[in-house]
Structure formats: structure tokens, C-alpha cells
């Protein structure tokens, strides 16, 4: 899409631009707006090269801090382009080009090979490929037999830079992308959680439906409550009775014999015959542990244990 946009060559002596297409334009800067350097560096990635770019231009530029850098890998070297964004912005505005109208910014050096003939810059200067480097020369030094060419959209390189919207945007691109990434990340987390909850929910509903189909009498919540209340009371009471029987059965050991036992809905009572006092004491301790009431039967070592349910 970007490559189909009109490509305007930007040079110092250019006239003001009267009309810009509604979908914006791409611009190509002449060397009047940038400084280049080619270096053979042992780096693999553009971001690594970009990191060392300022140090390469230390001696060439006065205000390194105000410059930005564009880096392109060439066959055997890296092409470094330093440009002053503010200066370019000011120039474009002077020439009637609003930054919002500019899609991409390119550098003539990027397509040096396409400059097979001079490209005229107004009446006095021309853009020429001089030993592989795009240079601005006075037209007077050009070979009169050489026919000048005009640039068109076919000169649009693959990579370019984007200038932020003329200071009218509230967010810088980096901030915007960081914020958007955080929001999208959270959105993904929420969607994943929701689908997990949804899956569980659906599985529960399905399981419930299967159970209700198998137990149609439980479909009414009133019936369910009534059945639940009825059986819960029975379950609690009967479990307690069985627990008491189980605990008392553990009190039958060597020297301790069960002589009588009674359990009903409200209480229980058991009597144990003990061989001697020590057995009786042990039995009493065991019963105390279970919080049962104990009493000694007169005239002997028998122990009576009782409690309520």
C-alpha cells in the first residue's frame, strides 16, 4: 500500500507543495538533509548497529544528540544515515507539507543504484550517483549528453522511517505500542480465564442435567431440600450411634468384658466388668477421652459408661 503513494523528492531549493493527495505522500530526502557513513562492522542485527551509530558520527556531527539514525545492511557493510528530525520537520512545514500527510520518509542513498542518470533539483543542482554515493552537484558539471531522469514510485525503498504526527499526537509511538501490548496481554488473560470458567461451568451444568435426568424426583428444589433435610438428620443421628458402638467396642480388651449395653434414640449405656483396679482405671481414662460419663459400680471393679446422643 505504502509504495503506491506519490513519492516527493525533498531538496533545499524546492518550491512549496500546493496540493497533497488525500491518502498522503511518501518523501525521499536528498543528502542535504542527512549524513551517511558506511562501515564494516562485526554485528549481525540492525538494532546492534543502531546502538553504536551515535559514536560513529561523533566527529562528523556537531549536535549528535539531536539526530536519529537509520541503519541498513548492505552486501559487505552497514549503511548508517544520521538525520535531524526537527530540522526536517521544520523544512517540510515551510514547504506546505504537514507531517500528518507524510506516510514514510526515505533517503536517496537507499536506492543509489536506481540513479542511473542525474535527477535535477530545481534549476541549479542535480542529484547524482557518484561512485555509489548519492551526491548533490551543480548542474553545470553534468555531462550535457546525459539525459536527466525524474523519480517516481518505483524509487520507493522497502524500508523507511516514520515521523510522529507533528507533535499533535498525545502519545509517542513507543509508549502507544507498550500500552497497547499491556492491554492486549491482559485482554488475552481475561479471555483465557473466561473460557476456562466457561468450560467448567458448562461441564457442571451438563453433569447436573445428567444427574437430574437420572433422578427426576430431585428436579424440584423443594423436593430436593425436603429429601436433603430428612436424610441429613437421619445420617447425623445414625452415624453418631454407630460411632459410639465402634468406640465402646475398642474398650473391650484383656481384663475388660462387656456385660451389658443399650443404645436408643437418645442415650447409650454400657457396663464393663474389669479384672482389677488398673483395668478399671484405664477404661475410665479411655471413656473420659471420648467425653463419656463414667461411674464405678459398687462392690467391685465394674465400670458403667453412659452418654447422650
Amino acid at each position: 500500500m505504502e509504495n503506491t503513494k506519490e513519492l516527493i523528492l525533498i531538496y533545499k531549493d524546492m518550491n512549496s507543495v500546493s496540493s497533497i493527495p488525500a491518502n498522503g505522500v511518501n518523501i525521499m530526502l536528498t543528502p542535504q538533509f542527512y549524513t551517511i557513513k558506511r562501515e564494516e562492522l562485526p554485528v549481525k542485527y540492525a538494532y546492534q548497529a543502531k546502538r553504536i551509530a551515535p559514536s560513529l558520527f561523533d566527529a562528523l556531527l556537531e549536535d549528535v544528540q539531536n539526530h536519529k539514525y537509520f541503519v541498513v545492511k548492505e552486501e559487505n557493510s552497514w549503511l548508517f544515515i544520521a538525520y535531524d528530525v526537527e530540522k526536517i520537520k521544520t523544512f517540510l512545514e515551510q514547504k506546505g507539507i504537514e507531517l500528518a500527510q507524510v506516510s514514510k520518509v526515505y533517503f536517496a542513498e537507499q536506492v543509489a543504484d536506481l540513479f542511473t542518470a542525474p535527477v535535477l533539483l530545481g534549476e541549479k543542482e542535480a542529484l547524482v550517483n557518484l561512485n555509489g554515493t548519492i551526491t548533490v552537484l551543480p548542474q553545470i558539471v553534468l555531462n550535457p549528453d546525459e539525459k536527466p531522469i525524474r523519480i517516481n514510485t518505483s524509487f520507493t525503498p522497502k524500508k523507511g522511517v516514520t515521523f510522529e504526527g507533528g507533535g499533535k499526537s498525545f502519545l509517542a509511538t513507543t509508549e502507544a505500542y507498550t500500552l497497547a501490548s499491556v492491554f492486549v496481554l491482559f485482554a488475552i488473560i481475561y479471555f483465557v480465564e473466561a473460557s476456562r470458567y466457561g468450560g467448567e461451568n458448562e461441564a457442571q451444568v451438563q453433569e447436573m442435567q445428567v444427574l437430574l435426568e437420572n433422578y427426576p424426583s430431585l428436579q424440584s428444589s423443594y423436593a430436593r431440600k425436603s429429601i436433603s433435610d430428612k436424610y441429613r438428620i437421619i445420617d447425623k443421628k445414625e452415624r453418631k450411634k454407630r460411632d459410639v458402638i465402634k468406640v465402646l467396642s475398642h474398650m473391650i480388651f484383656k481384663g475388660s468384658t462387656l456385660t451389658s449395653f443399650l443404645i436408643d434414640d437418645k442415650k447409650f449405656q454400657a457396663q464393663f466388668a474389669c479384672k482389677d483396679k488398673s483395668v478399671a482405671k484405664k477404661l475410665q481414662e479411655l471413656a473420659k477421652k471420648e467425653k463419656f460419663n463414667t461411674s464405678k459400680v459398687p462392690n467391685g471393679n465394674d465400670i458403667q459408661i453412659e452418654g447422650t446422643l
Partner: protein
Amino acid sequence: MIQLKRYKNELIVGIALLLLLIALIYKQGVVSGQSDVSAGTSLQELKEVIALKKVWGDKKITKKVDKLKTIVSPSKVKWSKKSKKLTASFLNLSNQELNRVIIKIMNLAVEIQKLEVKKLGASYHVEFKCKW
């Protein structure tokens, strides 16, 4: 188009924020839907009722109760079953027989109304009343 491009960054953040809000609302919707199910009749509650019904409303319990009569010699058993109520006496039981009877009673899902054990000499006498 150019106006949109001018506020491209804001637009990106806005769309991402909108996506986040949609995701949040969607999640809340799903979660509240789930709590509606829990509030009404939770699956856990239903399972519990079914489990209780299976134990205490067992339709085969009458047959299981009848088996109690057969675990000791018939001469030692006095059996009286009316509708869903049982009164049984087990006489002259040895220690092992007493254990067997008590374990069987404990494993029956019936309401024990009365369980009485008495030692008479070397044997035991058991009286059991229950309903289901």
C-alpha cells in the same frame, strides 16, 4: 484518512483498551453466570442429596435386613418384621456370633431404635429394634 493517521497512536491504544474492556466484561459475565449456578443448586449439593438418598433411601434395604436373620442359627433368632419395622432377638450368642451380628447391624442403613446387649453367663443376648 490523514486525521486518522495523525492520531494513529491514540487509536491503537484505544482499540487495545476496548479489547481489554470487552474481555473484562466477557469474563465477568461468565463468572457471574457460574455463581448463579452455585447460588441456586450447586452440583455438589445435588451430589450430596443423591448420595444420602442412595444410603438412607435404599430400595433393597428390606432384603439386606432379611439377611441379618441368616447369619446365626435360626434357633437363636426371634424375628418380627412388620412393614418397615423390625424387632429381632438373638439368643445365646457366642463372642464371634455377637461380633458378626453387631457388625452386620452397623453396616445396615437403618434407623436403630434400640440395640441391647446382655451377657448371660458365657453367652450374649441381643435385642434389636429398627425402622427404615
